[in-house]
């Protein structure tokens, strides 16, 4: 019978996990309606913030959930053999205005994996691509090691 050992990550381990991965899940809500999508992101370990590009078309539901700096959760998880690790961040998702860009912010987005909108049917000028910054108020992680019995 397999047994699990669960360990909470240290802040440094959380930073390492987020720096090692490039994709996760962004969860939003509006009234009783949930909304969750896969995202690509870049992680600034110094400020502990995630940078992401969100792509939508004029008729997509995504825009309805992104209005006015919503509260959001981001989950980044992965597994390596019998070790499962996950980080959950809870905080505000803020749109980055192009007029507020700095060289440092531009460099940060340069290190952010582009979302896979290349597979979209629409051309890039027809897509609404917005820059966002996720600033977690709470950022925690757990590692679970599954110890399986030898057969």
């Amino acid at each position, binding site marked *: 019978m397999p047994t699990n050992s669960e360990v909470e990550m240290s802040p440094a381990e959380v930073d390492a996990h987020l720096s090692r991965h490039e994709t996760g899940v962004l969860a939003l809500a509006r009234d009783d309606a949930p909304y969750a999508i896969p995202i690509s992101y870049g992680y600034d370990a110094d400020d502990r913030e995630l940078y992401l590009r969100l792509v939508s078309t004029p008729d997509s539901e995504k825009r309805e959930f992104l209005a006015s700096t919503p509260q959001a959760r981001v989950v980044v998880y992965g597994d390596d053999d019998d070790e499962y690790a996950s980080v959950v961040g809870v905080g505000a998702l803020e749109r980055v205005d*192009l007029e507020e860009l700095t*060289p440092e*912010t*531009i*460099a940060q*987005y340069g290190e952010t994996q582009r979302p896979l909108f290349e597979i979209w049917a629409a051309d*890039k*000028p027809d897509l609404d691509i917005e*820059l966002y910054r996720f600033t977690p108020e709470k950022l925690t992680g757990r590692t679970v090691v599954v110890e399986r019995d030898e057969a």
Partner: protein
Amino acid sequence: MTGRSTHTFVCPECRRSIEVDNAMRSTLLETGCVVCGAPVTEEDMGEAPTVG
């Protein structure tokens, strides 16, 4: 008072335009368009610098 020199960057792929100073301009040339990530060249930076 001396204003900083700015250029109007227009991405050749997503067509978003951004006013950039010299530092931002250099970073964009290294990293690509901040919005869509497309490669950027000097030609995308606009010709006439303006003083802001």
